[in-house]
């Protein structure tokens, strides 16, 4: 395919690029991309609207990027706002802004220090966040590390190791949660989920109907209806758990 990449496409100011094969696509200012593009690098600093699908080695958006189709890329970085109407598949995805994706997100590594919203599933090897997120589907990752700075919702979590805690450095948020926990609604401000299933689960400030795992650790501020475990379970005295059941082999 290399020979088909005829050149770079550059917009500084405002303009429109036709779809096709490119080496680099860079937009500083405002740009519109009319068809599917296949490029080595896509850079946006300003605002851009990609009408079609984007396939490339890297996609970097600092500013605002709107994607009408899918993104398939290696490295994907958003430090502004991003909106993807299709799916987002990348080797690594990091966002320090706000990113919303209508269909699913798949990446080996996901790092969120802003916010992520999707109405689909998120699949990753490692999923690390120190921000907020709203995932309407399943969050499926080997390693899930959630440092909550705000409200987090995920319908279902599945994986190998899940760790949810309140961001230790965010003293302000911690105080609010602790105060509200005194009146018994602390878990309302943490992670909200329906089902959490993993080999190792360690959660705090989490509201969930069911938590299942081999080794389960339920920390302070949790509100959980049913905990099922096979090996070990710990429930903090400041957690509310309606039922704990050991499942034996």
């Amino acid at each position, binding site marked *: 395919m290399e020979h088909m990449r005829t050149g770079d496409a550059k917009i500084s100011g405002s303009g429109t690029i036709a779809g096709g094969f490119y080496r680099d696509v860079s937009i500083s200012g405002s740009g519109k991309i009319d068809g599917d593009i296949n490029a080595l690098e896509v850079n946006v600093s300003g605002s851009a609207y990609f009408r079609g699908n984007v396939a490339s080695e890297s996609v970097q958006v600092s500013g605002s990027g709107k994607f009408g189709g899918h993104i398939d890329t290696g490295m994907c970085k958003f430090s502004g706002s991003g909106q993807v109407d299709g799916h987002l598949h990348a080797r690594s995805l990091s966002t320090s802004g706000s990113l919303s994706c209508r269909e699913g997100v798949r990446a080996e590594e996901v790092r969120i220090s802003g916010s992520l919203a999707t109405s689909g599933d998120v699949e990753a090897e490692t999923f690390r966040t120190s921000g907020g997120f709203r995932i309407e589907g399943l969050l499926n990752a080997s390693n899930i590390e959630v440092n909550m700075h705000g409200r987090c919702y995920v319908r279902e979590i*599945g994986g190998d190791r899940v760790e949810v805690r309140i961001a230790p450095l965010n003293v302000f948020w911690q105080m609010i949660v602790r105060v509200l926990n005194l009146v018994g609604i602390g878990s309302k401000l943490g992670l909200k989920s329906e089902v959490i299933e*993993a080999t190792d689960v360690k959660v705090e400030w989490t509201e969930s109907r069911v938590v299942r*795992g081999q080794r389960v650790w339920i920390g302070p501020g949790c509100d959980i*209806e049913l905990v099922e475990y096979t090996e070990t379970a710990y429930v903090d005295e400041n957690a509310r758990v309606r039922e704990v059941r050991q499942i034996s082999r």
Partner: protein
Amino acid sequence: MMQEELISKKDLLLETGISYGQLYRWKRQHLIPDSWFIKKSSFTGQETFFPKEKILARIQAILEMKDAHSLDELAAMFTPTSVDRNFVLMDVSEAIGLRSSLVEVCIKVWEKYRFSFLELLMIDLLAELDAKLKLTEEEVEGWLLSAKRWTSELSGADRQILVCRKKDVMLYFMLDVPARFSLDQGSQLLAAYDLSERSKDLQMKLQNIVEG
């Protein structure tokens, strides 16, 4: 559709001895098709169930093969799109059992010699249909044109292919699984294929050429 016996996720883990981590990893790597995760409401809210026979066989297969093959290789065996290799049709036509006249038609319709796994899956199915139903030239072309369109849109093998005949016209359908369908009056169902099953078989066939 036939009612299959189901097994809950909890019982599945107990029976097979695998962990949640493994189950979710295999799902992520498409070793277990999404359509096998069946949500049903129960007294603790929603529970996930699986078609018992299929999932037990699949997990058995994964456990047996996982030492000899990497997970990526396994994924390639169970799902076609992760195989990004291209195949020259002439090299593999024998393994597929494709008549040489059909090889020519395929090349003509697609206007290329090298085919992706997914395209090959459709061609493999053509060979099967041709042997089974003795397709006419028109029907072959009809199949290939549909296949060409489908493969450009298809992103997984979690599909089913139906072949029907109404009077003298052959009809091809691609369905998401699990699908419930009923045919109209006068149509006759000639064959139905599960793409993910066939992709496993095709993978085996192709493996033989590479190794042999």
